């Protein structure tokens, strides 16, 4: 990708400025279809639910727009020859919601234990404690989600097998097929039914991102 440099103070290292080529821009425009916007919005809506469950709010508009804008301005490097734009956008949304979730869990922890920060602890101890908290919260949430889905999928053998696979930390279709011995078609149908069960989750688990005024990101 062609790069340019800006004027700098003495001793400062030059940072390349992203300058897209016409070919790069044409490829991006070609892949930036209405369908991609729709898919990214549906993906971001569900990912935002994870953050909401940690007590924070995140704007679906911002998630989708930032993922594309960060690619446009070169903050996120995209090579059209290496990955489709949809994967790039999805990855950016996944990464940002994961970080937002972790931040929200930490924030909640500090507000619940305001005096803990004053204790003398090494950086490693602090990091480990934070990681424990993330895992504890995530464990509770994942368990709650899977158990709720299990209840809804009662009597649906393949959906239960799929949840068993999640329990066994198998997530990719290949891993799930290896764990459950399901065919591609059976797996697809089980995932479809599980997605429908998810839509029937109780309100506290099914919470969707609330529309709100822009510029009030938490």
């Amino acid at each position, binding site marked *: 990708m062609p790069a340019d440099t800006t004027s700098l103070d003495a001793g400062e290292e030059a940072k390349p400025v992203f300058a897209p080529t016409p070919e790069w821009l044409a490829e991006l425009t070609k892949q930036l279809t209405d369908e991609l916007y*729709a898919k990214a919005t549906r993906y971001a809506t569900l990912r935002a639910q994870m953050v909401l469950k940690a007590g924070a709010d995140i704007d679906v508009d911002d998630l989708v727009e930032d993922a594309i804008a960060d690619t446009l301005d070169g903050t996120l490097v995209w090579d059209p020859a290496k990955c489709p734009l949809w994967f790039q956008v999805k990855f950016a949304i996944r990464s940002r919601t994961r970080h937002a979730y972790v931040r929200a869990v930490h924030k909640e922890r500090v507000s619940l234990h305001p005096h803990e920060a004053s204790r003398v602890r090494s950086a490693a101890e602090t990091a480990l404690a934070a990681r424990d908290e993330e895992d504890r919260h995530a*464990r509770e949430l994942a368990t709650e*989600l*899977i158990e709720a889905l299990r209840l809804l999928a009662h009597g649906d053998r393949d959906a239960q097998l799929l949840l068993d696979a999640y329990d066994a930390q198998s997530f990719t279709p290949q891993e799930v097929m290896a764990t459950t011995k399901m065919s591609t078609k059976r797996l697809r149908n089980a995932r479809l039914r*599980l*997605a429908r069960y998810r839509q029937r989750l109780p309100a506290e688990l099914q919470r969707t991102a609330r529309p709100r005024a822009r510029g009030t990101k938490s």
Partner: protein
Amino acid sequence: MTKHAHDLDTLDAIYDELAMFEAEHGTSTPQQKQIAQRVKTRVEARLAELRRNLLPAADPPMRLRPIRPSLLALGRDALLAMLEELRRTRAVQYAHCNLQGLSDDDLRRLIELLEE
């Protein structure tokens, strides 16, 4: 009961799996359609800016040569007669049907252009 312990990676993967399936096979709600449209509008504006940046820089404005003194000395009637002469003898054509709309200097520039 779940048989295995979950952690952040597990939760992240479950939500990714559910979200991916929703993205690939779900149907957008009216609210999601509005969000997608809003984002598209803003991204299109950024794309237009990037495309503009790729255009070659415009040429600097052209400075006209000064009108030669011999033409400056002529009045409007003389200029119109000169144009008529050029049209008749050199078979030149110009788009101005009504020369009344042109100033004297416009006529002088037109003559210079036709004589080039």
